[in-house]
């Protein structure tokens, strides 16, 4: 059966309350439309994982979807702070937010371990920092060969991994290119996966450096043109830098934020395909 679905059906099938969910995308190809669909469907108590929670996670946290955040850098890139994220941590609004905090290298290795089917990954990281004292998923181990003291981080295996890509073919094979961050690892580490794509094409064209995710590792593919906006999709559209700037005053104010969620997400008739 083809994994190609409508976005709302796919989110409804794949994402349940209380799930561990990773929406990844490193500046490029952020699955924003899928995040909005999760808000629309009113999912709660999610553990949201992401190396760089930015505006879409600020929106999901502000909308009350998240109970916990697993992350390594939370900010509005190029603009400043995430105010919904801060409000949740500092004032428990709209609900308390637990955090599990890593470095980028740590998170990347946690996904790699998850994708590799291993219980943990090893890196020369975190030494001399205060992070291990606050994060259960970082331990120190001794190398069995050299005796060197190294960091071990537990594998991250989300219930659902969600990424955005440029194209899929009609069978559901996915292709992405440009900056592909940790997206391949996220899909392979996750029990279920959803890929939103700019376009479904008859045939994928081979491209240098492109990542291909064969249909048998992807649970569902949904065609959502513009689904990464305000981030960008290389070859399709550029980053909407003004959006990130405009987000700052909206995110700062609870009331402005509530109105924004109502008009821009909840009252949107239905999701894009």
């Amino acid at each position, binding site marked *: 059966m083809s994994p190609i679905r409508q976005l709302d059906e796919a989110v409804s099938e794949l994402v349940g309350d209380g799930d561990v969910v990773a929406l990844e995308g490193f500046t490029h190809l952020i699955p924003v439309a899928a995040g909005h669909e999760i808000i629309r469907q009113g999912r709660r108590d999610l553990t949201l994982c992401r190396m760089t929670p930015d505006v879409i996670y600020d929106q999901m946290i502000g909308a009350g979807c998240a109970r916990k955040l697993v992350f390594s850098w939370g900010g509005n890139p*190029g603009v400043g702070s995430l105010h919904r994220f801060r409000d949740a941590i*500092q004032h428990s609004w709209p609900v308390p937010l637990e955090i599990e905090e890593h470095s980028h290298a740590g998170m990347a290795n946690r996904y790699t371990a998850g994708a590799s089917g291993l219980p943990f990954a090893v890196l*020369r990281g975190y030494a*001399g920092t205060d992070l291990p004292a606050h994060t259960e998923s970082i331990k120190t181990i001794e190398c069995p060969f050299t005796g060197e003291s190294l960091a071990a981080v537990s594998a991250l295996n989300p219930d659902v991994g969600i990424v955005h890509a440029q194209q899929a073919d009609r069978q559901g094979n996915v292709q992405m290119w440009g*900056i592909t961050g940790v997206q391949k690892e996220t899909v392979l580490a996750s029990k279920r996966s959803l890929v939103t794509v700019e376009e479904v094409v008859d045939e994928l064209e081979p491209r240098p450096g492109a990542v291909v995710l064969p249909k048998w590792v992807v649970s569902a593919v949904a065609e959502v043109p513009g689904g990464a906006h305000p981030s960008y999709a290389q070859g399709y559209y550029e980053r909407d*830098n003004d959006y990130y700037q405009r987000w700052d005053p909206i995110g700062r104010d609870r009331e402005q934020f509530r109105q924004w969620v109502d008009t821009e997400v909840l009252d949107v008739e239905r999701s894009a395909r």
Partner: protein
Amino acid sequence: MSVGAETASTAGTAESASREFTADEMMTIAASRSLRDGTACFVGIGLPSTAANLARRTHAPELVLIYESGTLGAKPDQLPLSIGDGILADTADSVVSVPEIFNYWLQPGRVNTGFLGGAQVDKYGNINTTVIGGDYDDPKVRLPGAGGAPEIAASCQEVLIVMRQSPRSFVESVDFVTSIGYGRDGGERDRLGLPGRGPVKVITDMGVLEPDPQTRELTLTHLGPGVDVEQARAATGWSLRVAEELTVQQPPTEAELSVLRELKATTGKGDSQ
């Protein structure tokens, strides 16, 4: 040890000082001069990116720019607005995944220089970008977190810290060690045996601080043109030591200033953080 052009302050000419410049411009230019041609630099967005791109356009055309999004050898013709800007992928020698950039390129010590900033730095060059005040679970201010910094601080052959100096940001001891300099007592880094040497310079809008070779305490070694020692002391939250031989930074040259201003104009927004 220090090969940056600003050490040759006696070479400052009347022409070079004839044009007005800001302390921030001096700071960016000093950072740029610290990058040697033909070396590899791990670049963060904002001032480090401006400085690295300036260096590539002035004295270091073969400088290799590495961004944590996975772009190796990026050669952008305008300032990127984020670490994952499409222009970085378009102009890079290679685009690799995020696990690869941290594990293969940063961790083994292949990168000469890392550039870091932060909300707080202390007298032993430790950096905090995590929380300020209160305790970790109930902070006064929640900051973005670690990102790539802990491993950049540990593994780059040398680290440059670039920050505006103020008593609030230059503190006796950071509230949280996100990225290690020389550790809480100045000797921790050596005991840990980290691959990189640690912070070799802290470049500020007041001048340059360098670690004392024995105690590792940051010591004022260079003053910005027109800045005096009392101003630098007043901008420091600990009792700042001053090197016996205090040099005045060579002011920006006409060429440096015009290239910097042209570069910043290319983004439309200038420094994005």
